[in-house]
């Protein structure tokens, strides 16, 4: 078997002897890998544990609620009302925490008393469990307490960027008075910022939802969504069963029937949305990821077909060398391995270039690329920040490797095998 050093040297020789072909091949691979990696980064960011959504595998979502009058006189559809939150989500045995978030997270205005400047902040009105479901890291201060929410206290947790903007640093913010939507509010905590890409958890300011005037003025539906942290050992089905039992009990005493489309959804179902669940919220078969894999495969196979032309050229140039090696004892399978590994070195170079290209592409398109498949686009105007864990993840590196491997096999296996079947004597004579 040929040595690693020789394989690498041989690959480099190829670059030297046919620089244009190799450059074309490497760029072709790079472009193919870029498309796959942009897709992979998007779904990695949406699906993998990314700060502060570190518990995505245990998270579940309840948003849409349809209320139908029992006498058939009307129907409405939105999120949960405050009453429904209380009736449905109290004492859940299969959840460790239930974040309740009001949908009124439009930018709120923030002012510092005595100053004229008006700041905007993406604001989440929520409950203390929010900081259990999402792993926000407190740089200073504390989250708001059940007591704060019960008393409807005007307290706020800021993210570090906002705290820096307002007060220069995190520590200096704690205990300061600000006016949120012109209401005096005290800053009690500062968290390390999440990214606007993860819209569910993102906020620049977090306040108890009880600070919203009329937060419990109810209809059949309301403005609240819930994010659950499923208890270890419990399943999404346990949670579903528990909630529908609560709904059944709660509905039995009122003149409305509520329907929740087979929610809560897992993070996976929530992310893939309509691609994954049908109108009634039943998961379409779990083929979704399979479809994405097939799309990725096609994204790789089409360029691979084109690239194999370059490979054939390269191998034909080397048919003399191949014949010589055969004469001195190389077997077809051994040479096949050599050709594949050598080509893999080039493919890997292209794939790594492609990964960097995809970083560049994602960076410059980050404002829209992460919402491209979302049914609604969030109105946040803050530029989504990309964190190292979004880009430098072992999952992504593994995908790059697999993509390179697929490209390599698809573009060079058949040409290599075909060339290796060429009779030795003929190749030797042609070299002459």
């Amino acid at each position, binding site marked *: *078997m*040929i*040595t690693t050093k*020789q394989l690498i040297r*041989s690959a480099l*020789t190829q670059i030297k*002897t046919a620089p244009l072909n190799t450059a074309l091949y490497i760029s072709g691979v790079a472009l193919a890998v870029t498309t796959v990696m942009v897709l992979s980064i998007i779904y990695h960011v949406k699906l993998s544990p990314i700060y502060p959504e570190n518990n995505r595998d245990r998270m579940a979502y309840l948003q849409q609620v349809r209320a139908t009058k029992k006498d058939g006189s009307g129907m409405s559809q939105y999120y949960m009302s405050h009453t429904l939150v209380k009736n449905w989500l109290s004492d859940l045995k299969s959840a460790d925490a239930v974040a309740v978030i009001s949908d009124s997270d439009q930018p709120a205005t923030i002012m510092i008393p005595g100053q004229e400047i008006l700041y905007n902040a993406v604001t989440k009105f929520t409950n203390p469990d929010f900081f259990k479901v999402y792993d926000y890291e407190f740089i200073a201060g504390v989250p708001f307490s059940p007591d704060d929410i019960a008393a409807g206290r005007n307290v706020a947790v800021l993210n570090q960027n906002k705290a820096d903007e307002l007060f220069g640093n995190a520590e200096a913010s704690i205990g300061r008075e600000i006016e949120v939507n012109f209401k005096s509010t005290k800053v009690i905590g500062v968290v390390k910022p999440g990214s606007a890409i993860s819209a569910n958890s993102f906020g620049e300011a977090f306040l108890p939802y009880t600070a919203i005037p009329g937060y419990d003025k109810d209809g059949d539906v309301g403005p609240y969504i819930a994010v659950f942290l499923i208890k270890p050992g419990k399943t999404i089905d346990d949670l579903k069963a528990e909630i529908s039992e609560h709904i059944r009990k709660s509905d039995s005493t009122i003149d409305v029937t509520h329907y929740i489309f087979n929610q809560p959804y897992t993070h996976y179902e929530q992310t893939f949305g309509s691609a994954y669940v049908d109108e009634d919220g039943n998961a379409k078969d779990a083929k979704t990821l399979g479809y994405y894999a097939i799309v990725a495969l096609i994204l790789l196979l089409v360029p691979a077909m084109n690239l194999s032309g370059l490979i054939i050229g390269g191998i034909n140039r080397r048919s*003399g*060398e191949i*014949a*010589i*090696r*055969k*004469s*001195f*004892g*190389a*077997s*077809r*399978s*051994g040479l096949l391995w050599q050709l594949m590994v050598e080509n893999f070195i080039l493919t890997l170079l292209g794939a790594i270039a492609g990964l960097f290209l995809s970083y560049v592409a994602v960076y410059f398109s980050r404002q829209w690329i992460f919402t491209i498949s979302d049914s609604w686009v969030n109105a946040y105007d803050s530029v989504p920040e990309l964190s190292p864990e979004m880009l430098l993840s072992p999952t992504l590196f593994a995908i790059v490797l697999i993509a390179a491997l697929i490209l390599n096999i698809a573009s060079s296996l058949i040409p290599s095998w075909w060339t290796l079947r060429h*009779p*030795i*004597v003929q190749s*030797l004579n042609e*070299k*002459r």
Partner: protein
Amino acid sequence: MNTIISLTGINKLYRTKEIETLALENVNLSINEGEFVSVMGPSGCGKSTLLNIIGLLDRPTSGTVKIDGVEASAMSDRSLARFRNNELGFVFQNFHLINSLNVIDNVEIPLLYRNTPAKRRRELAMKVLERVGLAHRINHYPSQLSGGQCQRVAIARAIVGNPKIILADEPTGNLDSKMGAEIMEILHSLNTDDHRTIVMVTHNENQAKLTNRIIRFFDGRQVQ
């Protein structure tokens, strides 16, 4: 004397669109271990074809080839490869060195395919390069060598793995007479000192006369 190469009823037919060429016709030949045999005949009479068949680089259309007691037709690609690696060493008229490898890497090739450790490979390659007088040229590339030097590298490569049989197809055909004489000297020393069996194709009567036996071909048939 042990027979090391034995051909029985060998025919080799080349078919192209226009014509069929019977390159070898009913060749029966046996060569003993330790013999130095010359193959002669006019151009196109089938000498190279014969050597390629003996060297298991090509299969005959019919007939049996036995090398060192093993019948070749039954062998798989992998065992043919192993057999070529262990038993045979080739020297070609055009040297057929790999241009992208330097001298010592070229010489090491047969050892690569029998998993000799790197250090041992280097030792063995150095030894044979010393023998052909090229120890000072190991880092040169084929394009930086003269024809005679290239052929000496090719001989070093052919013998580095200690094969029993050396097959040389016009090894001096591209060399001037002085360099040709050097090559012949090396081949004779391999035959007499190392007892290797050598089959050499040549057009040179003087070279042939110095070998143990001359086999003459005409139009694909052995005439002597």
